């Protein structure tokens, strides 16, 4: 709070202004600025934003004190500046107070009383300004901190997404799959989740969690993972453990919704509707909807992709195969949604198609081979 006080004295009589100058000017911390009428006073107020208080005479030429008071109190820029009306006529007191004057003094005024009244009003005004400044400072601080928090939250969310993509890529890297497979599973799953009526947040979580479905392949030995032919029974048993391994990798991730969803997807994306899937033989809606969705996405993508041991099936052929698995492999409602909106999914497949050749994946092959009709194609 500045200790310097600037007083605007408005009076058309020089003797009165001089008396105010003498009475207030003797205080070292008061500067008196003069105006000879209301119009001059308003000009000074516009030019000098540091005016702390106005001492206003009523009878003046050009613009009298009543009009000046009215203009000051109806102007947002000046309203908070206290106005003490200096009058020789107390009969006007009620009127000027009703018009918003903060105080009045009658001539001849006692200099000590004048100083005290001026200082009291200025102190009030400066305290108000301080409170206002503090409020706007606090408000801007809160906004700044909120923005920082939002940024930090966005960053941590991005970091989580980034980790899931990198983990998924690490698994596919060993498997020689392309990044496009991961991208397609992500987009296909998201689209199906939207159609299934999952919340926006759930859809987003699944979109980022779906790439983690095969993360457990990291733990499968090369001789099985990269075997260029059909797996024998033991090898297949070993291959099946990629679901549990993936789940273990992603376990205890309660605070991270995407990784937690990734664990569900990794564990359950080979569970089948009729309970004949693995690793736990869950059936129906005991299988999390994330698992049921990713299974459809994963199989559709496998069937319609080139493999060294097979050309990609046409969409029609793939659909025929998948319809065979309705109710046995796939959640029938989800499969119907998928089939009813096939154009959307075929579009995703096209948009994120592989640019180069992909190599075999034993897991997918075994999955596909187990779909009725797929093995004889």
């Amino acid at each position, binding site marked *: 709070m500045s200790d310097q006080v600037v007083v605007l004295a408005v009076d*058309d*009589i*020089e*003797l*009165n202004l*001089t*008396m105010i100058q*003498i*009475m207030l000017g*003797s205080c070292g911390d008061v500067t008196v600025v003069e105006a000879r009428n209301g119009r001059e006073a308003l000009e000074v107020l516009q030019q000098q934003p540091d005016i702390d208080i106005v001492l206003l*005479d009523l*009878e003046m030429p050009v613009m009298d004190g009543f009009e000046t008071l009215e203009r000051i109190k109806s102007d947002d820029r000046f309203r908070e500046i206290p106005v003490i009306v200096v009058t*020789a*006529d*107390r*009969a006007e007191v009620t009127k000027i107070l009703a018009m918003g004057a903060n105080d009045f003094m*009658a*001539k*001849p005024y*006692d*200099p000590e009383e004048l100083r005290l009244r001026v200082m009291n009003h200025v102190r009030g005004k400066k305290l108000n300004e301080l409170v206002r400044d503090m409020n706007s400072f606090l408000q801007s601080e809160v906004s700044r901190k909120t923005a920082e928090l939002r940024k930090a939250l966005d960053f941590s969310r991005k970091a989580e997404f980034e980790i899931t993509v990198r983990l998924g890529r690490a698994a596919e890297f060993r498997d020689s799959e392309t990044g496009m497979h991961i991208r397609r599973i992500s987009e296909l799953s998201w689209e199906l989740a939207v159609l299934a009526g999952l919340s926006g947040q759930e859809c987003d979580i699944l979109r980022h969690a779906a790439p983690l479905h095969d993360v457990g392949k990291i733990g499968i030995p090369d001789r099985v993972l990269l075997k260029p032919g059909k797996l024998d029974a033991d090898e297949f048993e070993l291959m099946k453990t990629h679901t549990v391994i993936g789940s273990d990798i992603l376990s205890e991730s309660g605070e991270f919704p995407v990784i937690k969803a990734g664990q569900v997807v990794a564990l359950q994306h080979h569970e089948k509707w009729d309970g004949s899937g693995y690793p736990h033989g869950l059936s129906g809606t005991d299988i999390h909807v994330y698992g049921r969705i990713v299974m459809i996405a994963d199989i559709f993508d496998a069937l319609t992709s080139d493999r060294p041991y097979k050309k990609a099936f046409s969409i029609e052929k793939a659909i025929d195969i998948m319809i065979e698995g309705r109710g046995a492999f796939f959640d029938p409602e989800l499969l119907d949604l998928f089939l009813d909106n096939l154009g959307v999914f075929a579009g995703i497949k096209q948009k994120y198609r592989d640019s180069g050749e992909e190599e075999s994946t034993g897991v997918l092959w075994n999955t596909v081979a187990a779909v009725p009709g797929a093995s004889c194609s």
Partner: protein
Amino acid sequence: MNDQDLYAGALSESPVVTVERVIFDRTALLDRIGGQAALLPRLLALFVSTVDDTLACLERSAAAADAVEARKLTHTLKGVAANIGADRMHAVILELETFARKGEVASIVSGLERLRGEYELFKSVAHE
């Protein structure tokens, strides 16, 4: 004199004023200006020039029977007389203001003569 005038008149008087009004309350003025006697000539000169101008205007407005203008001018005189400590002038001006409010132009003219007399007295006392 109506109630409002009574009120205005009563309040315009200092509560510590004695029955006997002084021509020039130099002590009270010195109190108000922090005892700076050196400032007195300047203030008195300002007072005189203001009263000279205002009285001339007041005479013209009285001659023109302009009671509204006369009231404004008596208001100005009231303020400066109070400020300088011209107590007896102040009392006469209050009467003039009342005449002006009532539109009694003839009374203003006669009152003005008395005011002139008080003014001359003030000047002689103040310049002592």
